[in-house]
């Protein structure tokens, strides 16, 4: 019996640029195949072209593109519309935006039933509530009437899946279903997809996160720049990757990689700072002075307690990691540390002197001592300035914007050539933007750097380069980091000591290896268990 879905050397191009070329795979009912690749690898376009939604002006060709006995290539728009939703379900990439903010969630689910089912409006509404329950949404009646922004990320994702499977399609395409979700929520979503596959639904799982794909997919296609560089059973591809790109991808995953272990082939650091490429060695244990400490921090927004009695201390040259799910208060702690926000109670001291109690005027000269980098680097740059101007401004603390040789040297230090000076941040890749943000932060030679989710939105390989850069700079300048993240593997790899936060409180703290070795608090244990690991299970 031929496969449910057959794709033979699929090719998609927009005008002259080819985005996908030579992609072939088959899929049986109840089987899950994984498409892995970084952003721009064409994995998402491949999936969408199955629905005829590759995009405006896309030219799709293939020697075979069959779903059951339908030839998707020559299907009429009417047939495609009948297939979408009824036979092939699709969970779109930016899942958190896949629900119309102005319409109740239940209505979005009922729409699929309206398009493909005989049910009247009232039965559709009831069925939508049942579907929400089926995908594990608590209080489905209440949630069905609410709008997208009144639901948490996880619930929204579940509602999108409910909408995609409402008409019981035989194939489900899940495009980045778990990005930007906390690990525990991520685990829940993957369990749901696993159940659907087990019930006989064909599943195409698309993600940049190898660990996520490895948990569900029986076979994996690794895509790079529109081509399949490697494909085969999951354990083979991950266990003994044949293609160098796959190897680099597997290596770049920070989870379980010890502190200081370079995630990228050790690249000789140009310039005066090239340390000897010795194996991962922590810096000499210098008697560490506390550069930044906080005690008894409390911060309330309206009737919500965002930070409740949080204390910590960061030693010179070392990294304090702060891990917790969204809404745990870690970003608020960062803003209190930076004295951008005033605590309701408790104090922050920088280099031994009062920091949160000081007035803004007193703090201004000492601002140079503490820098910051953010998850969305681009929005932290003045849109009208070029890279050169941004860095010159940081160097001269605002007086001159002349792009001089110090700027070139600063760029070099973060691994970028002088030609970047004239460029506008808007035109650069995510990784390059974050490097420039780091260059700007270290320009005034700070002692402490607050890193708030610096790599969360970067592809795995780019993430690795940025993390290695941070390690190099820490070792070269004795910088101390307050490193905040929700990806357990990344935070563990970067931090010497760790804070685990939940609901605004520190539930556990201590040396990173001790906390991961024998986690004392149940929430920490649950977090560690939920973190996806390369070796499956």
């Amino acid at each position, binding site marked *: 019996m031929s496969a449910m879905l057959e794709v033979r050397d699929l090719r998609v191009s927009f005008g002259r640029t080819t985005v996908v070329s030579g992609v072939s795979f088959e899929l049986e009912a109840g089987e899950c195949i994984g498409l892995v690749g970084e952003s721009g690898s064409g994995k998402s376009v491949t999936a969408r072209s199955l629905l005829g939604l590759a995009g405006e002006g896309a030219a799709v060709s293939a020697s075979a593109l069959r779903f059951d006995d339908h030839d998707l290539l020559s299907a009429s728009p009417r047939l495609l519309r009948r297939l979408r939703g009824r036979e092939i379900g699709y969970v779109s990439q930016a899942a958190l935006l896949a629900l119309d*903010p*102005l319409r109740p969630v239940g209505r979005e689910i009922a729409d699929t039933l309206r398009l493909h089912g005989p049910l009247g409006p009232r039965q559709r509404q009831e069925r939508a509530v049942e579907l929400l329950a089926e995908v594990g949404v608590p209080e489905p009646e209440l949630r069905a009437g609410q709008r997208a922004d009144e639901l948490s990320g996880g619930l929204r994702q579940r509602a999108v899946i409910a909408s995609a499977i409402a008409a019981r399609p035989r194939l489900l395409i899940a495009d980045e279903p778990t990005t930007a979700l906390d690990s525990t929520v991520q685990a829940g979503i993957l369990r749901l997809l696993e159940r659907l596959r087990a019930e006989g639904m064909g599943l195409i799982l698309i993600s940049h996160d190898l660990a996520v794909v490895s948990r569900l997919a029986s076979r994996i296609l690794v895509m790079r720049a529109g081509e399949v560089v490697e494909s085969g059973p999951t354990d083979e591809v991950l266990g003994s990757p044949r293609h160098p790109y796959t190897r680099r991808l597997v290596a770049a995953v920070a989870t379980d990689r010890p502190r200081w272990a370079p995630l990228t082939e050790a690249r000789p650091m140009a310039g005066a700072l090239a340390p000897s490429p010795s194996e991962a060695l922590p810096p000499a244990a210098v008697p560490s002075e506390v550069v930044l400490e906080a005690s008894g921090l409390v911060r309330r927004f309206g009737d919500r307690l965002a930070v409740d009695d949080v204390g910590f201390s960061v030693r010179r040259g070392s990294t304090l990691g702060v891990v917790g799910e969204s809404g745990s208060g870690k970003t608020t702690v960062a803003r209190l540390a930076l004295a951008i926000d005033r605590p309701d109670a408790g104090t922050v001291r920088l280099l031994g002197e009062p920091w949160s109690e000081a007035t803004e005027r007193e703090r201004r000269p000492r601002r140079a001592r503490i820098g910051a980098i953010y998850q969305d680097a681009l929005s932290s740059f003045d849109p009208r300035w070029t890279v050169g101007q941004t860095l010159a401004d940081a160097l001269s603390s605002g007086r001159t914007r002349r792009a001089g040789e110090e700027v070139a040297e600063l760029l070099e230090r973060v691994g970028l050539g002088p030609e970047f000076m004239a460029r506008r941040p808007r035109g650069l890749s995510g990784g390059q933007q974050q490097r420039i943000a780091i260059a700007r932060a270290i320009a005034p030679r700070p002692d402490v750097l607050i890193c708030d989710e610096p790599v969360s939105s970067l592809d795995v390989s780019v993430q690795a380069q940025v993390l290695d850069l941070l390690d190099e700079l820490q070792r070269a300048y004795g910088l101390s980091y307050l490193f905040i993240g929700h990806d357990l593997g990344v935070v563990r790899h970067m931090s010497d000591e760790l804070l685990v936060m939940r609901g605004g409180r520190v539930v556990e703290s201590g040396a990173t290896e001790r906390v991961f070795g024998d986690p004392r608090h149940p929430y920490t244990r649950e977090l560690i268990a939920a973190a996806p690991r390369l070796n499956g299970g």
Partner: protein
Amino acid sequence: MAGSIAAQPPVTTRTGGRARRWLPWLLLRAGGVLFVLWAVATITFFAIRLIPGDPAEAVLGGPGSQASEEALAQARREYGLDRPLILQYLGYLGRLLTGDLGHSYSLRAPVAEVIGENLGGTLLLALLSLLVAAAIALGLAAWSVRGGRGASGVSSVLEIVGAAVPHFWLAISLILLFSTWLGWLPPVSVPGPAGLVLPVLTLAIPLAGFLGQVMRESILDAMASPFVLAARARGEGEGGVFWRHAARHAALPAIGLAGWAFGALISGAVVVESIFARPGLGRSLLAAVQLRDVPLVIGIVLVVALGYMLVTTLTDLADRLADPRLRRAGR
């Protein structure tokens, strides 16, 4: 005749929240309305006093009346024009609070009655024009989204041209075309629908130009958004996607524009009502100012200001109901 507007819904006052917190918003809003009405009445009261010419003369059948000294003196006493300005003002405010808008000099009738007669005509004209403008703007947007390559270019130019046409030039051209040459429609307003078509079109086309430009951006954003892709992936046709999703998103900036649109419609009504000889507040306002009919001017201005405040309060409310993000973001 208010200024132009870019696609930017106004930032509303800073309170909001669940039912319990609606109260402060309502109180603040009511306070704002009262303040604005008081300010408008005061400014108009004193501004009109700056106009050259003797108010008493305006009382006696308008300017150029060769009324005798006794008649003028009697009029001054009757309308209290001989008392010091401040007393007149306080007296006037007092009567205002009791809802007495005073007596129109030129029309020799209570202002409230004059406004009552004319309000209907202007409101009907304004509402119809708003609806037609919205329909044209939405139609253009739908055509540009689904009409293929040239469609969106042409429709955006149409919008810009529409917004750039002066009301009276449009009115004259429409009369020339539809009445003088084609003879389909009466050139001046006659009872019944036929008399409404040209005046409404004259007001609606420029407004549609503005609404179109404002809605176009949010419609194009919506059509390219993930939730529209998800809808298509569910099997929704292009029509369904436009009317169920994109059109609603276009309503947001349009609602934000309603306050400004109300002002533009009233100003436009002054011109349209005089060309088409339609009774209404716009025309009465123009005549009242020229005849220095103080009570009538202030009466009409107050009613328009009240109308404006109602519209902005409604749009504020609609904003919050339509887009919960505003409410939750505490804006």
